[in-house]
């Protein structure tokens, strides 16, 4: 059937791909200051193909549930369309949020933007303040003591 055509393993049609970009831009838009990317700037499809293939059919169903004019609408129109989608398909939408957030909050650019270190925590580790133990002086100044019990 595809004889003579170049085929790829990209699972979305062009319209679905465009809808996905717009949908992710609504879920997590770029920050106004510009230091945080939009979720649409990240490659959700590659992430799902690597980590959550099972979700792809659900994603396609969600994208197909969006009207075609979703692509030509302004942000407010898209926002309302996504809100309707979240009400119509709460389970699938929740799963989309999970996957979109999982992708977004692993991105080095995003982690840098929120002031967290990128990459695996180990073996990098974290430095934290030791804390001021002199605050315990107030505790030790009270007569409180453990409750004695019979042996």
């Amino acid at each position, binding site marked *: 059937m595809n004889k003579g055509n170049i085929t790829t393993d990209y699972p979305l049609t062009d319209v679905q791909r465009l809808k996905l970009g717009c949908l992710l831009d609504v*879920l997590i838009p770029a920050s106004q200051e510009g230091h945080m990317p939009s979720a649409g700037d990240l490659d959700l499809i590659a992430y799902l193909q690597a980590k959550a293939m099972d979700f792809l059919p659900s994603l396609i169903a969600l994208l197909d549930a969006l009207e075609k004019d979703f692509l030509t609408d302004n942000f407010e129109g898209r926002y309302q369309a996504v809100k309707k989608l979240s009400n119509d398909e709460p389970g699938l939408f929740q799963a989309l*949020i999970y996957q979109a957030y999982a992708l977004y909050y692993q991105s080095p650019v995003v982690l840098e933007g929120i002031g967290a270190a990128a990459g695996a925590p180990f*073996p990098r580790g*974290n430095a934290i303040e030791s804390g001021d133990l002199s605050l315990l002086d107030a505790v030790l100044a*009270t007569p409180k003591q453990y409750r004695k*019990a019979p*042996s």
Partner: protein
Amino acid sequence: MPEANSNEPVDVLIIGAGASGAAVAWSLADTRMRIVCLEQGDWMNPSEYPTNGTDWEIQQHGPFNIDPNIRQRDTDYPINNDESPINVVNFNGVGGGTVLYAAHFPRLHPSDFKVKSLDGVADDWPISYDTLDPYFNQNDRMMGVSGLAGDPMYPPKQPPLPPIPMGLVGEKLASGYNKLGWHWWPSDSAIITRPYEGRDKCLNLGPCMSGCSQGAKSSTDITYWPQAIRAGVELRTRSRVREITLAENGMAEGVIYYDEDGNECHQKAEVVIMACNGVGTPRILLNSKSNKFPDGLANSSGLLGKNLMFHPVAFSQGVFEERLDSHKGPQGCCILSKEFYETDLSRGFVRGYNMQITRGTGPFNTAIQGYASGQIPWGPDHHKAFQRQFDHVASVGVLCEDLPELHNTVTLDPELVDSDGIPAAKINYTLSENSKRMLKHGVDRAEQVLAAAGAVEVSSTELVQSAGWHLLGTARMGADPNTSVVNPWGRSHDVKNLFIVDGSIFVTAGGLNPTSTIQALALYIADTMKKNLANLFD
């Protein structure tokens, strides 16, 4: 020492390689008896723990989830929680629950052992804090416990390592407690803050509850087990016990278990020790029916599986204007408060609760939990709401003592089975009015201290569902065979070569994390067994 063949009898057979099984194995090893431990799970590989990867938070929702019904490893067994507002959480593997626990490591208080005498409710334990004191200390040294001596809410004790850094979260909450004149203290933590016994110190990775890649958290696979194995104990993994078999003389003969390939094996032993926690132990004993024990082995009292205690948990989170670096440092170990631990009937309930200050979550969990709670929406307000919370939160866990009640039970589910076809556990549990009042009081006080510390926004969960870590009371200890399952040193009243060393034998629960006390009990029982070897079955 040669390994025992499956069919060759051993002296001691321990079921379960978690907190208590590891401690009892290590202690008994110096007898040079032939000791085998059967563990249904695997050895863990720290290089496979989530913090080795960028998807460390995602894995907490899957293969490293604390709920076995979600985790669904083939080494897990399902649990029917349908009749319980609290879900059982655990881990099955060498180290057991200590692999995924927070490592918050307080001891029970002296008063916890004498609840009936002091407050007229439940029952006294047949032993006291003083009985366990040397074993608490021994366990602290074996596990590697960090803390600060001098807490006026305890008899004198000296943790072997300095405390976990409080961080900005601890400092902030401490200032709140001081404003209110309430007790607080740096938590005892089973996390090493200095190099200790060949292990390196904590790196403040954060998510202790998905396994510690650094090996700083003291799970028993890296504390007790290496020493026990060097001393000659054999540990067989992927060995799932179905039942304990009974000899004609009424003594335990051994166990039937399934090995890694699903083969049914019979292991005979002179002594059988249960160390499977307050759900796993009654499950196996209830599955061990015979003509002599038609209602389950060692159950002539009818109390096996009854009096389940969980510790109901409430949780309050405060959002602060200042950045607190909340996602850094051991999430569950910071400071605690015993201000409301002891009975004060003017509060409207008997007994009390511990307040455990916890740090925040990582970015993904902040976002997804914020979505679930409605505090961090998707859409144009996402970034603002996220940044308001991430690294800006501190939380108070309210961990309540629940009293033993006969109707809170572990039974066998009539339909649900594990992958070997063994009937699964079913939980029936209801919150008592006393617990409900305690939870409400705890939430009010948690919100009060968060506000005193400067939180600009406070939200609470009045009962955390996935918080059934502490599985206690289902085979209680006591001197009277009519009102207890095991005697004051863990030996079954009915079957004199059957011992229980896990949280099942708690008489009451206290109001705090029980692992320290569970392990001290296991060491105490092992020591008592050693002292009575000549007449162990008399």
